[in-house]
């Protein structure tokens, strides 16, 4: 007999749909009104600060890169120090294709960059993700360093330390000129790349696949016990994350019209980690908050007082690690919860 047809089953279904906990669980992937805010702000920025659009593009790229790391680190719990490997793979693919005049159509070359980065992610993930903890940290770090050295060594093709300057990128859709002189085109193009990537990540993490990633992060043994293919899930997640980082890297190369070793170095990997953790990892919007706060601070402080900026950043990191483990968003959530609890209390 079908349980749903029995009277008991019907009441159970009715009770379940009225239960607020169940309701919030079944609707947790619905769009909330405030989720439109970042995009409204992004469009508003375009009109409000026409002189700072290249900074805006830099910001959007940082968000995309941090978002890709969030998928691997925040959701699947893969602690990596070498995420710039994929950023660099995408950047060098786009850069070299454009520099040697092979291919410079912006959208398809981003896809090629994503493919190249995904290939690196898949190959390294296949071997690296068997390990955890310090070993994984070291292996990701060494993989990135290996790529950096390779890019340095392949001087004849990659330009070595100096990189490849003055890339020419074809107009977007064959209509809109694409180079650093047209910051407005670059900004809108970056926004147009970030939005579908974000929607993809958002869909992914609310899918059963994304749920299993969170499960792996929280308790690997239990996921093994319920028969989840843990390693395969991690590898797929790592590859997707790498592809997104590759898109960010490709976009970086396109908007700057150059590519150099800084795309692959420890500095970049550490910065994206800091951006994500500053905003709050495993939270989808942490990448947005972190990138805005970090880049704004860096942009205005680092040029005026470079040493003080480094000191302040160090203090900030120490404070976050000690007191605000979930970043700015986590802090906001904690305050919000406290305010709500006080309001609900008689």
């Amino acid at each position, binding site marked *: 007999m079908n349980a749903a047809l029995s009277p008991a089953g019907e009441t159970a279904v009715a009770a379940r749909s009225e239960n607020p906990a169940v309701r919030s669980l079944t609707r947790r992937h619905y769009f909330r009104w405030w989720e439109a805010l970042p995009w409204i702000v992004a469009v508003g920025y375009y009109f409000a600060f026409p002189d700072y659009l290249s900074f805006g593009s830099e910001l959007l790229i940082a968000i995309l890169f941090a978002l890709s790391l969030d998928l691997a680190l925040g959701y699947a719990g893969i602690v990596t120090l070498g995420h710039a490997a994929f950023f660099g793979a995408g950047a060098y693919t786009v850069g070299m294709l454009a520099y040697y005049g092979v291919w410079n159509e912006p959208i398809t070359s981003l896809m090629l960059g994503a493919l190249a980065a995904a290939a690196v992610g898949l190959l390294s993930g296949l071997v690296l993700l068997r390990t955890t903890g*310090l070993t994984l940290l070291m*292996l990701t*770090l*060494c993989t990135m360093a*290996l790529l950096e*050295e390779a890019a340095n060594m392949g001087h004849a093709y990659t330009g070595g330390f100096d990189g490849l300057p003055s890339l020419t990128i074809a107009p977007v859709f064959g209509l809109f000129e694409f180079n650093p002189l047209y910051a407005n085109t670059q900004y809108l193009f970056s926004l147009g790349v970030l939005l579908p990537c974000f929607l993809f990540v958002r869909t992914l993490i609310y899918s059963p696949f994304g749920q299993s990633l969170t499960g792996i992060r929280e308790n690997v043994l239990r996921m093994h016990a319920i028969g989840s293919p843990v390693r395969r899930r991690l590898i797929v997640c790592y590859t997707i994350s790498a592809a997104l980082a590759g898109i960010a890297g490709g976009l970086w190369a396109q908007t700057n019209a150059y590519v150099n070793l800084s795309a692959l170095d420890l500095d970049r990997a550490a910065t994206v980690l800091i951006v994500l953790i500053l905003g709050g990892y495993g939270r989808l919007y942490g990448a947005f908050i972190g990138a805005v706060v970090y880049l704004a601070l860096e942009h205005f402080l680092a040029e005026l007082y470079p040493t003080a900026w*480094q*000191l302040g950043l*160090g203090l900030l*990191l120490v404070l976050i690690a000690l007191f605000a483990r979930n970043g700015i968003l986590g802090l906001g959530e904690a305050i919000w919860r406290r305010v709500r609890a006080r309001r609900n209390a008689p």
Partner: protein
Amino acid sequence: MNFATDFASIVLGGLSAGTVLFIVSVGLSVTMGLMGFVNLAHGAFAMFGGYVIVLAMNRAQFGFASALALGFVVTAAFSVALERLLYRRLYRSGELDQVLFTIGLIFIFIAATTILIGPSGQTLQLPPALDGQLDLGFMQYRTYSVFLIVVGAVIVLGIWLAFERTRIGAQIRATVDNRRMAESLGINVDRLFTITFAFGSGMAAIGGGLGAEFLGLDPQYPLKYLVYFLIAVSVGGLGSVLGVYFASLILGVLNFVLTFYLPKGGTLFIYALTILILLARPQGLLGRKEP
């Protein structure tokens, strides 16, 4: 003959560099093995100690040996203060928080050094007794390099004996192997950790001072050599003194030989080798515990 002496001098140079790497990293290996704490800021203690030693010699007319002793004591005391105040809050948190915290510490050290002492490198003036050439029988070689190799061998022997023969060494070994069991047997792991942390930081200070002559000493030191410290520790095996010693020597010699015979791509080979070793033995060459 020419090739043989060339090669021998390169290997000796590598061994002395590897020795410095060992002296800096050994404390990191033991503290990581004990607490599983990912302390990326270990190199900052080496820099701190190096500065204390060099400044004591250049500005306060300390002798080389007494400056080294001073560096050890000051850095050990300073690290205990940091450990008591900050590090211990993070023992139970994930390695991500630890990575973030120690990266933050590195930035603070770099910025503070730049502000207080200046961005330029410091130079260490060796005592004349160590600055000359030594006749090794088959060739002449720098006294200081030979001195470093001998000092390193003495240190590794001393630490190894302390590990194998003393009570506290036995406690450290037990805790590295199985911390919970050690705790339930009444070993005060907290105190043990503070002691090893202080000792490890003091050793790092000595390493910073001994290496200042050819590694240089500037505010970027903790970041510049971070990867090398981590490779030595992870390849050698957490908590294994001999492992770190051998890994450091191999790393030093490989680095020298490759830079000489294969100036391009030498480091590429080192990274690739590290990856291969860690894939084959995730716990490192001589590590016993699964990390």
